[in-house]
């Protein structure tokens, strides 16, 4: 009854769409082939995670970061993924920054309404996004980490 990691599949609908868009029009895919590709994708993620984790441990870090994953891609001989992944990362960072600024703007508006002048905790914006997330995740992870 134990759930194997490979059984954690990614959603079929999304996998199907990605496959269809990669192939020319009119090409179909059998159910078995599609579910095999889905499993392959899960195995890929597990393998990439393991490789990336090695890089993180080499750097004496406990948290996987983007560059660990990129290094893993090269290690796995998927260098051709590296450039598109870097571009995607740039776009993602820009989007995250936009979201953060939007929520900070909302916060400022709220503060103005309440009229209370709380001292702004001065925070550097560099690298604090990841650290904020880490703190949230760490609180969740403490239960799961066995040491």
């Amino acid at each position, binding site marked *: 009854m134990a759930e194997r*990691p490979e059984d*954690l599949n*990614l*959603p079929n609908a*999304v996998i199907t*769409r*990605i*496959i269809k*868009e*990669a*192939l020319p029009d*009119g*090409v*179909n*895919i*059998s159910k*078995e*082939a599609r579910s*095999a*590709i889905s*499993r*392959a*994708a*899960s*195995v*890929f*993620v*597990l*393998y*990439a*995670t393991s490789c*990336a*984790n090695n890089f993180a441990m080499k750097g004496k870090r*406990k*948290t*996987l*970061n*983007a560059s660990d*994953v*990129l290094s893993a891609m090269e290690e*796995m*001989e*998927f260098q051709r*993924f590296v450039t*598109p*992944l870097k571009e*995607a*990362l740039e*776009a*993602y*960072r*820009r*989007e995250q920054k936009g979201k953060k600024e939007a929520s900070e703007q909302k916060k400022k508006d709220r503060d103005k309404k309440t009229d209370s002048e709380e001292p702004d905790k001065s925070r550097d914006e560099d690298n604090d*996004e*990841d650290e904020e*997330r*880490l703190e949230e*995740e760490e609180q969740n*992870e403490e239960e799961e*980490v066995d040491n």
Partner: protein
Amino acid sequence: MAAAAPAAGSGTPREEEGPGGEAAAPQPQAPTSAPGARLSRLPLARVKALVKADPDVTLAGQEAIFILARAAELFVETIAKDAYCCAQQGKRKTLQRRDLDNAIEAVDEFAFLEGTLD
């Protein structure tokens, strides 16, 4: 003359996103998501679940999860295309499981998949 005034008696001009919803004409709302929202189609939560399944992994940052998701998409595209080459040789228009097996055997980078798809 009798002009059909769609606006309610409150005097507000007809807004597209009326909070009260009193405008009669249902205007199709354009999706408000930014054009760059399609950065990754795979749900990050599922990818994160896979990452957590590894007992050696302690933590993974948001960016790492995102890149893994994107890499998985690229992987699916790549393997689908490679499998398609095999199907094309057989003059078929439907990808079968054996096309995938052939691709895995033929392409070095897919060697890690051998024996895992059973």
